[in-house]
Structures are given as structure tokens and as C-alpha cells.
């Protein structure tokens, strides 16, 4: 008995769950496979939904305003809150829209229900910020049968037939990685260090999340153009400040000559900064170690103004305007791109003070 409990425990520890945090966490590659029950339920409801559609489709209403149904993941981080706010402030009645907002509270079942409700209400467009990548085929087919275009935001979905959704709006993590390298290159040139050997360490996000994969690959790809740059080590800080600090403490003891720290989100960068200071070293524009971070949340601007962080590459949650653009194009009957990235900026420390008041999140 005792041993059985122990073995269960070890198994439990091994399958330690992954972490969600901040923007990056919010984009975490979702757990695979929708539960079978959901699919069964879906099939059962399809017929019911279809009859509903028939009745609603039969009475085409005169459309004055564009009705948009938006199914949001939940409100797990300030990034997500900003994302919701962006949608709400874009699709206002003043702009000629009616927004039906649904908070799924991190559950896909709720999202599936919400989408079916949208279909029944015969909305003009459905916008989904999916909780998970998989399990969307049936409900999106229903939307397609009802002739309602679907726009996916933030996380990507994984469907057998990509005509099931009209467009996807989100962040280009790979590009964020490129941007970080481009900024570093420019910064080093400006400081006459272009010919120096540069030692870099990376604090990675939760392994397997799309933000981690994109940013790591983006940096790695572009680093090939810089033979003088050396990636000493990569280790995961799981997108959290505490882990970021712990890993950075270890890096500082192993390597004596770190020039650059790349933290794949702001929280880990905060932890790294604390670790660097505790080790008696300095960082930021006036310090020894260059800190490059991602996300550009409000606290990152505080850190840059305080002179601790060099740059933060934005992960933009303001999807609303981009989605509105697509809807306007569709209204006019124009073709839209399948993949639409939001505009994302790079915010170095010297612009932080000026930028901070303009920031919405």
C-alpha cells in the first residue's frame, strides 16, 4: 500500500503541470485532444442546431449594425484583460457594431456553447480566442453551414480543413525573436562593441508553449549571422519571476562573463535583474549586463525607467482594430489574408518614459 502511494506520487511529480503566466503564458500551446465526451455532445447537438439555423436563416433581417459575437478565454492575466478591452472599445455602437461578449472561464465547453449561441442568434461574425488548439472542427462546421465567417484571435487552432475559419489574428513570436536580435545588433554597433565577443544566456518560457518556441527559434535563426555572439546556455524559467531569478542565480555562478540576458517574458527578466544585483553586478543601459525582454507589460516600463532593463519587445494584445479591419474588408466583399499579424513594437529604455503614458496595458 505504502509503496503504491509512493509510486503514484513519483508519477505525479513527473507529470508536473505547466505554467500559465502573462502574455506568453496565455499563448501556451494548449493541452491536446478535446475530450471525447465533448465530441459526442457536439454531434448530438448538431442536428438541433441545424433546425434552428433553418428557421433563423429563413428570415433575413435588415441589418443596420454589424453584430459580432466574441468568445474570450477568460481573464487570467492583465494581457488578457487588455485584449478584452481592445475588443470592447473597438466594437462599440458608435462604430456601428453590436458586440456580444462571452467569457468562457478557461473552459472549451463554454466556448463551444457560446459559439452555438452566436449561431442561433444569427450574428454576422464570430470571433474566438480559443482556450485550446484542438476540438474545433464540428462547431466551426456548424458556423460555416450557417454562413457566418469565423475569425480566430491570439492562439492558433488546429483543424482538419482550414477553410473552417476565415482569418487568424495574433502575434508573430518568430518576428519578435528577429526584432530582439536586430535591436541588439544595432545597440552594440552604437556602443562600438560590434567586434567584441558577446556571451548570451537565455531564460526560456515554459517549454513547448508557442511563445517559447517562436522566440527561441527567432533568436537562434538570426544569431547565425553573428558569429561573434555565443549562446552560453538556455534554461527554462517557466515564465515566472521566482524561477527566472533562481535560474539566473545559477547562470551567474557558472559563467563569469555574461554580456546579454534574453528573458522570454518580462516577469523572468525582473527575477534575473534581482539575481544580477544580488551577485554584485549591474545591468541596464548603464550597467554591465544587457537585459532583453519580451511582452512589454506596464511593469516592464517601470523597470526600464528605473534603468534596470534595456529593451522589451512587445507582444501586442490590442487585436480589436485588426479584427475590425478584416470585418470591414469582408463587408465590402474583398478577400482577406488568412494570417494577419498585429503590429508589435520594440521599446528600448530611452523611449520608456515617453511611451509609458500612452500604453493601454
Amino acid at each position, binding site marked *: 500500500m505504502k*509503496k503504491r502511494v509512493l509510486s503514484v*506520487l513519483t508519477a505525479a511529480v513527473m507529470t508536473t503541470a505547466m505554467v500559465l*503566466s502573462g502574455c506568453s503564458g496565455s499563448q501556451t500551446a494548449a493541452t491536446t485532444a478535446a475530450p471525447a465526451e465533448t465530441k459526442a455532445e457536439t454531434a448530438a447537438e448538431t442536428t438541433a442546431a441545424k433546425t434552428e439555423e433553418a428557421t433563423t436563416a429563413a428570415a433575413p433581417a435588415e441589418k443596420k449594425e454589424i453584430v459580432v459575437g466574441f468568445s474570450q478565454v477568460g481573464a*487570467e492575466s492583465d494581457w488578457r484583460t487588455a485584449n478584452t478591452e481592445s475588443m470592447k472599445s473597438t466594437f462599440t455602437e458608435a462604430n456601428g457594431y453590436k458586440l456580444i461578449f462571452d467569457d468562457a472561464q478557461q473552459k472549451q465547453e463554454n466556448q463551444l456553447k457560446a459559439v452555438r449561441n452566436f449561431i442561433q442568434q444569427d450574428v454576422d461574425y464570430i470571433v474566438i480566442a480559443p482556450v485550446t488548439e484542438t476540438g474545433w472542427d464540428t462547431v466551426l462546421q456548424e458556423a460555416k453551414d450557417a454562413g457566418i465567417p469565423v475569425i480566430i484571435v491570439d492562439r492558433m487552432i488546429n483543424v482538419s480543413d482550414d477553410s473552417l475559419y476565415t482569418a487568424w489574428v495574433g502575434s508573430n513570436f518568430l518576428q519578435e525573436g528577429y526584432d530582439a536580435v536586430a535591436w541588439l545588433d544595432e545597440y552594440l554597433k552604437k556602443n562600438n562593441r560590434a567586434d567584441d565577443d558577446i556571451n548570451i544566456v537565455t531564460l526560456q518560457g515554459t517549454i513547448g508553449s508557442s511563445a517559447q518556441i517562436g522566440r527561441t527559434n527567432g533568436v537562434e535563426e538570426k544569431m547565425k549571422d553573428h558569429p561573434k555572439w555565443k549562446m552560453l546556455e538556455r534554461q527554462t524559467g517557466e515564465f*515566472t519571476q521566482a524561477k527566472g531569478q533562481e535560474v539566473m542565480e545559477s547562470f551567474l555562478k557558472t559563467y563569469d562573463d555574461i554580456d546579454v540576458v534574453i528573458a522570454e517574458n518580462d516577469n523572468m527578466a525582473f527575477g534575473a535583474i534581482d539575481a544580477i544585483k544580488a551577485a*554584485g553586478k549591474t545591468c541596464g543601459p548603464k550597467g554591465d549586463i544587457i537585459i532583453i525582454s519580451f511582452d512589454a507589460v506596464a*511593469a516592464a516600463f517601470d523597470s526600464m525607467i528605473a534603468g534596470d532593463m534595456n529593451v522589451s519587445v512587445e507582444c501586442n494584445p490590442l487585436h480589436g482594430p485588426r479584427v475590425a479591419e478584416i470585418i470591414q474588408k469582408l463587408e465590402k466583399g474583398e478577400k482577406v489574408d488568412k494570417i494577419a499579424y498585429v503590429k508589435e513594437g520594440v521599446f528600448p529604455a530611452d523611449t520608456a518614459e515617453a511611451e509609458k503614458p500612452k500604453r493601454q496595458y
Partner: protein
Amino acid sequence: MNKGKAFIKRLTGYRLFLPIFCLVLVLISNLIKTPGFFEVTIKNGVLYGYIIDVINRASDLVILSVGMTLVVAASAGTDISVGAVMSVAGAVCCFILSGGQQTVNEFANPYILGVLAAILAGILCGCFNGFLVARLKIQPMVATLILFTAGRGIAQLITKGQITYIRVESYKMLGASIPGIPIPTPVFVALIVVLLTYVLLRKTSLGLYIQTVGINPKASKLMGIKSSMIIFLSYVFCGLCAGISGLVASSRIYSADANNIGLNLELDAILAVALGGNSLAGGKFSLLGSVIGAYTIQALSTTLYAMGVSPDQIPVYKAIVVVVIVALQSTELKRMINKLQINVKSGKKVA
């Protein structure tokens, strides 16, 4: 020769021999790849080195495992809500100190008020768990599952889903160090919790009661021990420990991150109890064993970082070490090996 053998036999006979042996083994293994692992210097007036990291970073877990040991011993079950309770305690403390703001540069309320409220929150959570287990006789894992799921939600509710920052130097001291004292503060906190608990269990009959109740609650009831009260108290104490641990964790990052404070730490705490050679079936327990187990877990993480193991492989190495340590302490395995030895010996004689 005989004397040496007797000495080894006596040494290995100690209850804590195996846990300590495993801890030392993990630490020594660093010498292969990181010769400077045991170097300690002073930076900024604070001790600095890998070994200090291990002792410092393990503090949260040590505090948790103290509470967990008592729960396991008294109720033969585990409290899986401790990680979430840590998060609640951190959120309560930051909420009071920030006065509901998202970022503050000075305390809105006295520091001591925040600390007391956080500890009280921990105790209340413990009372809730204790009531469910001791009074309503709900399976410990099921009872504590409630706060395991709801706890982080409560913490989110308190912090309004945002990370609350307390950017005050004196708030950071509990998780970092106090100026003029070279040892990180969490080490002291852990030390105080362990010592007080040890004294409490040794100087009063509480330790004995807990063991008695853990071995047989019915028999102890017949003996006049209020077994449900003892179980209730052990959960309250566990909540208290989680509250203190949450304070330290929150102070380390000078913020309340409801999603991440103490995440998965409940599993590590249970593992620490097991690694310390304690039976998860309740009854006899060794507090120091659990503490050593907690240090072993942190030593392992720090070792893997120091060795530069790639992040996607870390869980595998951790699992291997844990399996080996648990197997080493298994009495069943020992019996099997003994049997094998006897068989070999008798086999020789026959031949």
C-alpha cells in the same frame, strides 16, 4: 575489522541515515562537473554560492514539509491545498499592504498587519481543511482538493486577476536578506519554524498523540485522546506553515502572483515527506527526515541547473533520482536483496 563492521551497522541503523546519505550523495555528485559547488564567498554583504542557493531556495519547501509531515502522520492523508494556500496568503498580504492598488511604492497599511492577516488566512484555510477531514470524515485528498482548486481562484479574486507589486525595500527583506546579516532571511524563517515545531512536539505530548492517532485513531480514542481534535490541529498547523511559506515566496518576488506562487509545491512537499523516510500511511514520523527530504529536492534542482542539463530533459533526471532514492529506502527491496544474498550463500554451501 569487527569493530568497523559494527560501527557501520550502527550508523546505517539510524533512522535518518538513508535520507542524509541521499542528500550528501546528490551534493557530492556536483564535484564531478562543478568543482566550485561548495565555494562560498560574500557578495554585497550576503553569503554567495551554489550551496547557499540550495539552503535559501529550499526554505519555502522546508516550511511546507514541516506542516505536511504532521498532517500525514496524524491523518494518513496528504494536504494537497498547501500550494494554493500559499498563494492566498501572499495575495492577502499584498492586498492589505497595497490597499487595493496594483503597484505601490510604500505601505498603505502597517507591515505587521499584512503579515498577521496572511498567517490568519493560512490558519483559516487549515481550519477549513481540518473541519472537513476531522469532523466530516472526508478523505483528506478529496477534502483538500476543494481548496486546491478554489484557492487560486480566491487569490485571483483578491488581487483582481492582476499581479500586485509591493515595491518597498523592507517588504523584500523577508525573501532576500536584512542589511548587515550575511545569511538570507528565508533560512532563518525555516530554521525557526523547524526548531519551534521540534520543541513543541518534544516538550509536550503532542508528538506522541499525533503518532498514536496516526497508528490507530479508534484505539487512541479509547485511551482518552480526542483523535478528531488532533487531526484538526494538524491541518490548522499545516495551514499556518503554508501561510508563512506563502509570505516568504511573495516577499521573494515582492508581489502577489496568484497563478504562480507555490505552484506544484504541494507535490514537492509530499515528496519531501516521503524522501525523509516517512510512511505516507501515517503513524510514526520524523520531522527532521522531511526537512532533509526538502533540502534534497532543492539540491537536486540546483544541481541540474549547475550541470547545465537542457530544460526539456530535467524532469527525466529528476524522476530517475527520485525513483532511486525511494527504492533505496524501501524495506521490501532490502528484504529481496537479503533473500538473494542468503540464496547465493546457501547455494555455495551446497556446491
